[in-house]
């Protein structure tokens, strides 16, 4: 493999990994802020417990997003210096603004929220969380503006061979970004919804399994109480409310992603027709949506692919909103691309060994075809499961079946899969371009860049292999650590995030068996317990 291939693997691995943490941060942050607002408004203890419990898991995950996010900003310059030189004038601005207007807000106000439980007034404390959450939404907006410019460059003119920003409004209101931002945010909500649903289901199941809760003759649940800190009647309310909030959030998410995804798809058929043809593995022009295509999809040889099941008209609906317009397939698009953007890479030292090679305009269809279907499939499954979960638990009880509980817990992974598949689809579907040409642009549709030209010329393959191995290794270890910590704190229940619940119990014991001068009671400074 040469430096380009390795650098692409590195970017893919680090980005997909980073985007495991990010949607959970965005979605869960929003949910925790809503729950804390409910506590602020109603004063009900279960909302405080929910805030602390979900807040703890939020923080365990948040830090991984922070840690892996720094890599993202650095690696444009490190591994993709030619890309950075080419696009810096327009692409750098949203990145700088993301740091200045979003990251500062997120990190500072989250620090205030974590440590400020005692120092700040309740309303101010809650406001800090909301500000941090809004910061994370802005962060999503800025980075997607940057990404959307790579998908659909706007607001620039070519000056001395480089795109120079001439219309910031066009860049920051790129129609690609305006649909991708809500699509991504709804996707993030889906992750949070399934996360709440799965974990709450597990606890409800466990309470029945341990004999704490029982079910009456009418099928309604009768909450009980155990002599373990945090497993009282209020604990039941924590989980049933979390489950319902999670399920509703998951369904809102699916409706939102479906609606925005449809808008996005229609745009993509105009902006990057080849990506959408490859998403369908559609070789010939037509109107049908492929439910199952077989053949050597990965071979990039279109004539091998046979659509086994095809629903007529649906593809046209996805692309244009009617059932009859013919959508161009790969075989018609290929000559168009070759005519517009050339058949061979330029004979320029920038391209290294790849100079003069033939350009492969068809993305890896195995990835685009299945990525597109996995995104929709996982998202749909999660939403359907959420609907079922709401109905099954309408009387307040989860079934005692262990396999159902396991399904709910592993179901947490489905929206993660949908998010990752969606991004892999849209990024690999853009190839061979790192900046895709904008077919609408008047006179300057020459603003594009081949991925082959983007990699750092001065960096050796050995250096990039080193970083790929080091970063992947560290990420793998940290994933194990994060998941184990999450599991530990999930099993710990609310008391793991609220030591005061546990110490309220032990402090009572202490009154009778006075052991004299103890160091400051562990319950005395719960803020530090919440953090370090």
């Amino acid at each position, binding site marked *: 493999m040469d430096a380009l291939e390795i650098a692409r693997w590195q970017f893919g691995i680090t980005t997909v990994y980073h985007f495991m943490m990010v949607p959970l941060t965005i979605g869960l942050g929003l949910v925790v802020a809503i729950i804390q607002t409910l506590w602020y408004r109603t004063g009900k203890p279960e909302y405080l417990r929910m805030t602390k419990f979900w807040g703890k898991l939020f923080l365990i995950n948040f830090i991984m997003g922070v840690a892996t996010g720094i890599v993202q*900003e650095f690696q444009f310059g490190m591994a993709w*210096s030619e890309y950075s030189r080419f696009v810096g004038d327009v692409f750098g601005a949203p990145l700088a603004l993301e740091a200045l207007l979003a990251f500062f807000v997120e990190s500072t106000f989250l620090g205030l929220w974590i440590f400020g439980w005692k120092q700040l007034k309740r309303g101010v404390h809650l406001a800090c969380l909301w500000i941090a959450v809004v910061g994370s939404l802005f962060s999503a907006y800025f980075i997607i503006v940057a990404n959307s410019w790579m998908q659909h460059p706007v607001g620039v003119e070519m000056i001395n061979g480089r795109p120079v*920003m001439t219309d910031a409004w066009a860049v920051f209101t790129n129609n690609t970004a305006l649909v991708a931002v809500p699509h991504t945010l709804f996707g993030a909500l889906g992750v949070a919804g399934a996360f709440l649903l799965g974990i709450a289901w597990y606890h409800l199941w466990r309470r029945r399994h341990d004999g704490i809760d029982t079910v009456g003759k009418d099928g309604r649940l009768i909450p009980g109480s155990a002599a373990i800190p945090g497993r009282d009647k209020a604990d039941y309310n924590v989980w049933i409310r979390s489950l319902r909030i999670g399920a509703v959030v998951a369904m809102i998410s699916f409706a939102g992603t479906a609606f925005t995804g449809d808008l996005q798809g229609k745009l993509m058929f105009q902006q990057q027709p080849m990506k959408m043809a490859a998403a369908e593995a559609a070789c010939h022009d037509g109107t049908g949506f492929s439910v199952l295509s077989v053949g050597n999809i990965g071979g990039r040889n279109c004539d091998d692919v046979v659509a086994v099941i095809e629903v007529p008209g649906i593809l046209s609906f996805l692309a244009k909103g009617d059932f009859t317009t013919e959508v161009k397939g790969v075989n018609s698009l290929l000559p168009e691309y070759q005519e517009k953007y050339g058949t061979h890479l330029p004979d320029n030292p920038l391209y290294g060994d790849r100079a003069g090679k033939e350009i492969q305009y068809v993305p890896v269809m195995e990835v685009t075809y299945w990525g597109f279907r996995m995104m929709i499939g996982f998202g749909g499954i999660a939403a359907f499961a959420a609907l079922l979960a709401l109905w099954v638990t309408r009387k307040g009880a989860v079934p005692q079946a262990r396999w159902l509980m396991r399904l709910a817990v592993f179901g947490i992974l489905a929206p993660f899969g949908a998010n990752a598949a969606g991004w892999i689809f849209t990024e690999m579907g853009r190839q061979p371009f790192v900046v895709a040409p904008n077919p609408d642009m008047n006179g300057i549709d020459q603003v594009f860049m081949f991925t082959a030209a983007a990699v750092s010329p001065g960096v050796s393959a050995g250096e990039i292999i080193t970083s790929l191995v080091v970063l992947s290794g560290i990420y793998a270890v940290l994933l194990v650590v994060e998941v184990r910590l999450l599991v530990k*704190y999930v099993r710990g229940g609310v008391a793991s995030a609220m030591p005061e619940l546990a110490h309220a119990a032990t402090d009572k014991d202490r009154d009778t068996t006075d052991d004299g001068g103890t160091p400051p009671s562990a319950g005395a400074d719960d803020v530090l317990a919440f953090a370090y």
Partner: protein
Amino acid sequence: MELLPTIWFIAIAVLWTGYLFLEGFDLGVGMLMKLFARNDAERRVLLNTIGPVWDGNEVWLLTAGGATFAAFPLWYASLFSALYLPLLLVLVALIFRAVAFEYRGKVDSERWRTGWDWAIALGSFFAAFGVGAALALTTTGLPLDANGDRDGGPFAWFNGYAVLGGLAVVAFALVHALAFLALKSDGEVRHRARRTFVRWVPLAALPMLAWSVAVQFLSGKPWTWALTAVALCAAAAAWWLASKGREGRPFMALALFIAASAASIFGAAYPVVLPSTLNPAFDLTVANASSSDYTLGLMSIVAAFGLPLVIAYQAWTYWVFRRRVSVNHIPAAHGFLPAIASKVLAGADGGAAGAGKAGR
């Protein structure tokens, strides 16, 4: 003179100065976890002095990097790609450090905490050293060809300036952290920090001053030479004030020290942002490495509102958490009774041991 590129060169110098000033002490506190704290209670005091603020401080680095990308794409591309391996080390250091802060207290086990303490200390050290080396090299030069790419192997950047810059930031971070602890902690830690500060500050200021003088010899101007002298006086004042038992003023004197040092270094380098050691014709300058005036103008407007706002709310954070932290505030580390005991995590200790292994 190129007005907007010059403004952005100053802005980036200010962002780096802000980064060194703010993250300087939390990097130093991280290193002091192993060099200064004597027991777990003291380590937790150290952690809690920077707990609410370190993440906000780190964003100054991201903003400096992002602003360099946006305002001087060619500078960003050449510097980051030429320093591929050292920046990888910085990234690894920052990853471990960030995760360690958050995860250290999450499992009640000695091995677990010790492992993450090393991650914090070493992460802080390599991050400080790497950033210092990178800044020293961008002010003294890298072997860049006409396209701005590194000529030579993965270690072609290595020279004495890199070591000097790395040492400068590490040493500064250490004494800056001691001054910060004298101001932010209480009890034994507070007084020991001040005494240690007095002992080490004369030595710790030297590499930074040496770097500043070295850049003056390469491209100094009278006013930047004067700033080097200001930095020297500020270091002396910090030492003198601390030896008189003051706590706040030495910290402010160090702020002046880092600001004057950075201004003398960046000011001397101006208008070159990244010299080429191969051929002065390949130097990247504020004029040939910058973005268009349109982009710079847009960012100037946003930064003119954004940066003061950032400074205001970050200052407010320091005000909210102005209370000194002492050993007496640190609650006993408590494991918790898990709501659900299971084979996987049989009780708190089982969980600790299991997760402890994962952290190694």
